[in-house]
């Protein structure tokens, strides 16, 4: 369960967030959607404790990301916008490293790694150094290390970005599987996908719309979700000047 309330964040003169509020519920896939620079990644970064909000709060299972970052980190698995792998470590070593950082060790950690390797279909790359990995292979490693501690909340920043059709489908299946387990998935995307139970449309640092796909279609009068998205994000919202 993720609750974001009145989030504001400025980088010098740039107002990245102007009051973002939404909730992502357990057992649902919540899509954070919006054009480039809308504030999606900033919102996610505040949630995973690397940025402090200027105002407002971001809570994971009731823990405030600013006040109790350790508790939040324990409860989230993050696929960050930059996947940065260590080129001289193998895929398996990456997952093991993050597992150890989360306090896992021994046979249970190795069993968890094996499970992730087979779940993500990584058997052929698990013991290769990550230097020279393709985008899809890199993505799998980054996903595996995000999920190694079996987090209840999963934050994914454009997980299918740059993947081929097959790999993207595998990732979507994995995300559905996480939902079936009753976990909370918050999913950033720049293209409209049919995967999400709930869509939060972000633009110009505010939430433009929040609801199920059907609700958004009804609201805009557009049958096509992509058209609805274009319509919602085209005009800048009327903003109250403080």
């Amino acid at each position, binding site marked *: 369960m993720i609750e974001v309330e009145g989030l504001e964040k400025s980088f010098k003169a740039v107002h990245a967030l102007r009051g973002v509020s939404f909730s992502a519920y357990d057992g649902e896939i919540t899509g954070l959607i919006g054009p480039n620079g809308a504030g999606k990644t900033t919102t996610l970064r505040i949630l995973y404790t690397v940025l402090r909000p200027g105002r407002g709060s971001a809570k994971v299972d009731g823990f405030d990301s600013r006040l109790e970052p350790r508790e939040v980190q324990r409860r989230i698995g993050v696929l960050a916008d930059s996947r940065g792998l*260590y080129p*001289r*470590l193998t895929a398996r*070593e990456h997952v093991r*490293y993050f597992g*150890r*950082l989360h306090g896992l060790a021994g046979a249970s950690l190795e069993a968890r790694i094996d499970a992730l390797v087979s779940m993500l279909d990584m058997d052929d790359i698990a013991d290769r150094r990550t230097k020279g990995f393709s985008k899809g292979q890199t993505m799998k490693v980054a996903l595996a290390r995000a999920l190694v501690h079996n987090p209840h909340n999963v934050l994914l920043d454009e997980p299918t970005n740059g993947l081929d059709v097959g790999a993207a489908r595998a990732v979507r299946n994995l995300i559905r599987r996480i939902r079936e387990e009753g976990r909370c998935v918050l999913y950033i995307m720049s293209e409209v996908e049919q995967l999400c139970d709930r869509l939060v449309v972000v633009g110009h640092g505010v939430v433009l719309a929040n609801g199920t796909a059907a609700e958004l279609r009804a609201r805009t009068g557009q049958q096509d979700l992509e058209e609805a998205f274009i319509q919602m994000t085209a005009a800048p919202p009327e903003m109250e000047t403080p």
Partner: protein
Amino acid sequence: MRTMFARIWVVFAKEVIDNMRDRRSVSMAMIYPFIGPVLMGALIAFVGDTITALPESNFTLPIQGASRAPALVAYLEEHNVVVVAAPDDPQTAVQIGHIDTALIITENYTDSFGAERQATVNLVVDGSRLSAVVAMSRALYVCWVNTAPASVPSA
């Protein structure tokens, strides 16, 4: 605290693996410890060879005014020193490198020695040449042995 140290250890272990697999940084780290002693050893061996090889050979010492100190010359010859006559201008000869060193026995040597006063000899040497420094030490050594009052040879 314990978990913090455990985390630091996890990160440290990862860094060690990561860096040990980086061939370039490993070889750079290894070069100095391995090459350094080798270079140092080679230098010491070279200098040592130069210094120890010289005393075994006959040591030629040009002397000016050898006739003023026959006892000294006899003593030097007894100690494998080949005494030759120094050029007229020993300073210049040493400077331009014709000879490594030259011993000048001063004119009042005989008088002083006879009167049991300190007898003066001058040693000309170019200190920038290793062979000259070795020659100088040898010359000084044999002169000191000869002229020191306790060990004045009976000859």
